[in-house]
């Protein structure tokens, strides 16, 4: 009986490791419609997936900051913009990315594989993965928005940058998840 229990507890853990790479591929495409995997394309580097909705104004306002952070860590961290809205056309996304001046590669995640993998719920939120593709942080970029209608004059916490710093120095991340303010990804299902 005891053996049975132990095995039962081990299984999901093993499954999780296997599933991360598998899930990452399911339905994920670049703007040309080709299947893509942000992890295989980022081998050996930490990965940040930034989830955005084109119709989410909070997503938009974060663009300059996301661009700045990605530039600062460009040599050690691979950033990807992830659009989880299956009804969006590649063309509309391409235009938006160019309007906002992003220089970050873009993927579409119509099946929400990367959403599930990153455990994000809101746009804009991020999933931060270490070099071994382990999710170490998911949630908001910082605490700029108190709620949808109350942006602070400036953020006073910086969860994304803290998580990146921790990952790069092989330190544990202080808080593994803090939910963001913006638009629900679940409304897109």
């Amino acid at each position, binding site marked *: 009986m005891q053996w049975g229990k132990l095995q039962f507890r081990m299984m999901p853990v093993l499954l999780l490791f296997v599933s991360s790479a598998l899930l990452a591929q399911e339905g994920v495409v670049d703007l040309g419609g080709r299947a893509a995997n942000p992890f295989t394309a980022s081998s050996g580097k930490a990965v940040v997936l930034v989830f955005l909705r084109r*119709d*989410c*104004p909070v*997503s*938009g*306002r*974060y*663009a*300059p*900051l996301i661009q700045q952070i990605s530039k600062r860590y460009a040599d050690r961290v691979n950033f990807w913009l992830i659009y989880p*809205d299956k*009804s969006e056309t590649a063309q509309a996304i391409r235009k938006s990315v160019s*309007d*906002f*001046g992003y220089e970050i590669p873009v993927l579409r995640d119509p099946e929400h594989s990367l959403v599930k993998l990153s455990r994000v719920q809101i746009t804009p939120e991020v999933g931060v993965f270490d070099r071994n593709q382990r999710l170490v942080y998911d949630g908001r970029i910082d605490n700029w928005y*108190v*709620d*949808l*209608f*109350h942006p*602070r*004059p*400036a953020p*006073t916490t910086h969860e994304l940058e803290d998580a990146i710093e921790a990952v790069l120095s092989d330190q544990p991340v202080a808080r593994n998840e803090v939910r963001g303010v913006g*638009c*629900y990804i*679940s*409304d*897109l299902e």
Partner: protein
Amino acid sequence: MSFLRLSTLGISLLLAASVSQSLAQTAHAQETSSTVTFNRDIAPIIFHSCSTCHRPGEAAPFSLLNYLDVRKHAHQIADVTRSRTMPPWLPEPQKLKFADELRLSNAEIDMIQRWVDQGEIEGNPADLPPKPEFVEGWRLGKPDMILTATKPLVLPPQGTDTYWNFIFRVPIEGTKWVKAVEIRPGDKQYVHHANILVDREGSSRKREKELGAGFGGMEIRIESQVFDPDSHLLFWKPGTVPYVEPDGMALRLDKGTDLILNTHLQPSGKPEVIRPSIGLYFTPHPATKLPMLLQLEDDVKLDIPAGDKAFVVSDQFTLPVDVELLAIYPHAHYLGKDIQAHAILADGTRETLIHIPDWNLNWQAVYRYAEPVLLPKGTTVSLQYTYDNSDGNPLNPNHPPIEVKGGNRSTDEMCHLWLQVLPVNFDPAKGDPRMVLQEALARHDVENNPGDFEAHYNLAAMLQAKKEFEGAITEYLEAVKLRPQDAAGNNALGGALVAAGHPEQAAEYLQEALKVRPDYFDAHYNLGFALADQNDFAGSAAQFQAALQLQPRDAAVEANLGAALAEMGRLPEAKAHFEHALQLDPNQPIAKENLREIEKEMTAK
């Protein structure tokens, strides 16, 4: 003399709406079924209360016009309606009703929650009400005159909120009466609110670096030479439908009037080009009723200690005449928390004029009453604003908190309350009731804020308008004592001294004004007078010359320059100036009379 208005002002005009229809439909739904469907139960609420702004080209960031639109934001809609942050409507319900109240009922809010909980069912297509119809473009049809900003503003992608003022020069040759103003603030998604100030003397033009460029900041200082108080709250916020004034309540625009559009802009993450336009709708009916804006302001009382969670400012003003209250516009910045205004009638009855328990600068608005509210003479208007300068206020611009005082920057605080009132039940033979109101308000301000420059200045201007020169001089002196370097203050004091027959003293202050602002037309003009009164005609002519350099087409200056030259015996030159004055204004009285005299004298010689 001139009146100063220091303000970030606004106008009135709100959303057209009637809640009754959607209420009836939701009630019906509850009776017939416990399953909530989009087509039957949710669409009426959305179409009525959301789609006005949530459609292409309007202020909201996404459209809510059909089932798929709404489903894509269903949880968000459930959240923001439950918290009553959407639709945006800050005041609590009260006895005195506002027009176009944009507030969902509890039943409507519950309905949305249930719809989302039940899995966002679309329902029977036959239940779907007709799609709302909206007027595209100008809401009131093509305006009689469209003014577009000369130079667009490029809003940077990032940074704090921006306040920008566009100057619109109104190209009219004579007086026009305006029954409605539609503000199209440019890309509506990035303009939080906008309001128009009427600048009748071009006093903001000098703040433009180049013609049409506009200028930044929240502080707009408007001077006017005659008693001509602001009358209308010309305000835009997302969803605003232009308000058409009833006959007799039109806004007067004269030749040379500028409209200053003060905009509050929020960066979007990418560069945005903002180019507002204004549509004017004229009426042949001149104003027969003269409303005015009463501005209660207590910025001087704002000295909020760092960390103070509930700093209270209160003020009371007793009305000296009967008025009808038409609209109300409270204003505070990021520390403002709870905003209340009451009317206390002579019999002690207390009526809430407005109560906003959770102030949000980003959703400030003008609130127009559904019916005019009669406030008889002797009614006291009281305001009570509470500010939170603690770290617990996430909107606090300072982290950690610091002491905050009153001022015009967004990081300063404000305590303003504008009331649009219409004096009623007065005897026109006894003078202009607006002057009685303005003087009472000016005296109240001086009493409240003895250290406030504008308070003394405005009281002085009131007294001068009533030709009470000695009283005016006393108040101007107080003002200049408070701000010895203020050009407008020194000029006004000089002007009052000239009018009261003290040209020598006047010259001293006028010269001070010109030291601070060498291109100050009014000060040159007044100094020209003061010197002429002392028989220094050469000095006088020089001042009028300087004034003429600044405004070459001013007939009165031409005439006065002619007069000074004539006094010096330079008759042919004088004659030329009189003639030029008459070219500019065929009825210029000084030029007319003097030209006759000078022609007589020249013929006699």
